[in-house]
């Protein structure tokens, strides 16, 4: 297995699950921002392409003890991604400052090995060519290329916004590698009216997310598998934190 790089900047999210109502605005904002094609019938969730998916969590108890929570799942941008080393053609890599796992569509041959490796189901395949209702393709943003059929894609943390923020900093004479908190946020972060998502540089004490990930309520999905995700979740509810990883019956959840 290859070794993984450490980066000075580490873009990360802290998603407060106690603040997510599951409204789906983030999913829509993501599709519009990243030129993901709409699907007339998206009821087969195993074949509907959306980089960000909101899962429904339940505490498993019967009425009236039942509780529900919603968990938005972008790409975890793992520190030790299981998908990167398996790609036979280096179409995906984690080699840029910030630690975002890249996916280069013109390089991808569509073998789907990375999808098999990802336990978060964060990777999606273009089963067909993307199509938009007539004229709707005019609303595509110029920021993200449209993917043809046969390639794998995934959440990029709206990487183009990172590039735009750096360019803006350059033009304004600021250091592109020292962005302020909020200079670069993802489309879902921006769209969420509840502010459930906080985005920033986990390594930078000036960024809010830096403190948030240290909260005793913070956890990551499937931490023990060693993927080292850059997406953190927070919940004051123990049962929610317990759903973040597989626990044997006698094991205690942290926090």
């Amino acid at each position, binding site marked *: 297995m290859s070794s993984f790089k450490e980066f000075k900047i580490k873009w990360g999210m802290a998603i407060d699950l106690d603040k997510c*109502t599951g409204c789906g605005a983030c999913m829509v904002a993501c599709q519009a921002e990243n030129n993901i094609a709409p699907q*007339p019938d998206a009821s087969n969730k195993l074949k509907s392409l959306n980089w960000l998916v909101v899962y429904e969590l339940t505490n498993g108890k019967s009425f009236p003890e039942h509780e529900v929570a919603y968990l938005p799942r972008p790409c975890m941008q793992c520190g030790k991604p299981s998908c990167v080393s398996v790609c036979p053609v280096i179409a995906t890599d984690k080699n840029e400052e910030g630690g975002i796992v890249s996916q280069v569509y013109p390089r991808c041959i569509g073998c789907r090995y990375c999808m098999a490796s990802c336990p978060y189901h964060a990777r999606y395949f273009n089963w067909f060519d993307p199509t938009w*209702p007539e*004229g709707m393709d005019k609303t595509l943003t*110029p920021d993200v290329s449209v993917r043809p059929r046969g390639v794998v894609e995934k959440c990029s943390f709206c990487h183009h916004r990172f590039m735009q923020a750096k360019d803006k900093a350059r033009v304004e004479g600021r250091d592109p590698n020292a962005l302020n908190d909020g200079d670069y946020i993802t489309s879902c972060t921006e769209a969420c009216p509840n502010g459930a998502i906080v985005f920033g540089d986990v390594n930078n004490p000036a960024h809010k997310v830096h403190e948030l990930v240290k909260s005793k309520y913070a956890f990551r999905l499937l931490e023990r598998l060693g993927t080292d995700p850059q997406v953190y979740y927070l919940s004051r509810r123990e049962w929610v934190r317990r759903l973040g990883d597989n626990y044997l019956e006698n094991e205690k959840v942290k926090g």
Partner: protein
Amino acid sequence: MALDRRGFLKFIGGATAGILATPVVWKSLDDVSIWTQNWSWIPRNIDGANSYVPTVSKLCPSAVGVKVRLVDGRPVRVLTNNDHPLGGGLSSIAAAEVQLLYSPSRMKRPLKRTADGAYVGITWEEAEAMLVEGLKKAKGGDKLAVISGDETGTVNELFTALAAEMGSKSCFIMPGEAQPAAKAWELMGGEGQVGYDIEKSDYVLAIGANVLETWGPVIRNRHAFRVGRPHGEAPAVRFAYAGPVQNNTAATADVWLAIRPGTEAVLALGLANLLIKAGATSPAADFADFKALAAKFTPEQVAAQTGVDAKRLAAVAQELAKAKRPLVIAGSEFGQGGGAAPVLAGLALNALLGSMNREGGIRALPYARKVVPAAMDRKALLQNDLVAWLGKVASGKSAAPQAVVFYEANPVYALPQADAMKATLTKVPFKVAFTSFLDETAMACDLVLPVPMGLERFDDVDTPYGCGQVVYALAVPALAPLVDARPAGDVVIGVAKKLGADLGVATFADALKAKAEARGASFTEPSATNAHVSNAVLPVNGIALRADVLSKAIDVKAPAFPVALAPVAKLNVGTSKTATPPFNTKTVRRWEIQGKELYVLMNGATAAKLGLRMHDRIELSNPAGKFTARVNLFEGVINDTVAVPAGHGHTAFDEFSKGKGENVMRLLAAGAEPGTGLSVWTSAGANIAKA
């Protein structure tokens, strides 16, 4: 030399060796792979200069303040506008608004229905002539009805003024939360529009009102929620929710009080009972009556009627009593049909909590001055009950009008007993729809007139119901209409002129300018929001608690059906006006719609009682209608209740929503609320049979 076979083979061998030593194969391989990156049938990125237009969404019922990103004038995104008093995030429908400009079901030109029922495109000149002709026949004596789907816009003044000029007062807005609230507030003797200062409250109890999804200016509410709930910390503002289903609001609320559908007022009175016992009082003249009424609603009594857990109820009452700035918001879980009683009881609770006319409590907000002289003002318009009126027309108690004008309203889909409502409309000889989409109502009209979408027109949002402050927001066009559409306001002004009436404003833009002025707003300078906020409030004096009305209105009969129905409203499936936007099919939960089938939710105990299991196909029926659906077991539903996702089952629109699921409105029958006469349809029930 004749080339024999061996020679030929050698030639081929040489050629092959040669070709391999040239770029032919390698360049072709490379070009082919480049070709696969640029297939001509895949849309291209189009670069350009970015610009941003701040506006407010007229499409989303939450009236969210947004900004539109354009690239060389081409709209590409609706973005969050954090500076906007109604902004601070996006709703799942506003996020799709730019894409909806190109919705397949969008109206592209005026249409008229021919004798054989088909629609044909006509010019605007023909359309306006037809409209004038049709309206001429509806002159005098309430022969014209206007039904508007816009609760906050000045455009209503033009429509109602036109109606007034035609001698009609039959003007209605589509049912929502504002109407029952206006009624309740009026009964209590309140002035202006009732407002809820969520931003400054430290304890919000929502009874029925789905405050984080469908009640009031949702994005503004949610922004307050965001501010009051810092990440990973103990919340500075507690939220409690009472309703039959663990909906989006309940999912994040600190407390969920499960109550049967339609029992919101009973729950409020139960809380009043506990609060009064704990010493709460009110200066209201009829407090003694109210106290006597509340005394009847002991925790046991409330538990029996609402199904609420007495301990949880007591806990909430305590929390309310302890809170510094508690606020109670009562409404309907699916945003309509709740009647005045819940709001009345909820406001009475606020009075007991000392929340009247207080920061973080109830505010009385002044209505804006009319800018079209002949128009009905908002207060008057809110007094007209569309469902009741249609009921009278259906039963022949009122004469059917000669003409109906629909403005961005889809009553054929969205009213209770949708099938019966549709039948009632067939009594009207001339029906006109001003709409952006070819919806169910448009499909029932003789003339369909395309209006520009919210992003393509000037329009306004004046203090949506629920706002704690006066907010006036201007919608400005981010682009010229993509289709042959005309702003309804201007069409109305023109048509009125042709009918010999002067509405007093030359253009719709003039009306908006006047309205902004009336609100004290000035939009001469370019601003980041095009919105105006005012802290103006009206005094709240001599509020009565109206135990007399409540005692009658609260007389809710438990449905005589095996299960109660609890419709669940969510914005992601769009509105009756828009149906499900193309991007939003992916946000519909897996066990909500599968293919064309709707899933309804019930808890395990209810299912066991009915002998049902996950995925079973059932028929829901009651005298209003019936349909089949499948069972989704979800423990966040109160016993003996079936939660039905609303907003599905469209029979018009496009492949993204047409024919998917069922329309819950078909199962809801409206009744009259005793004491207020308001139409209510929150207490429905159904029979369940395996299908």
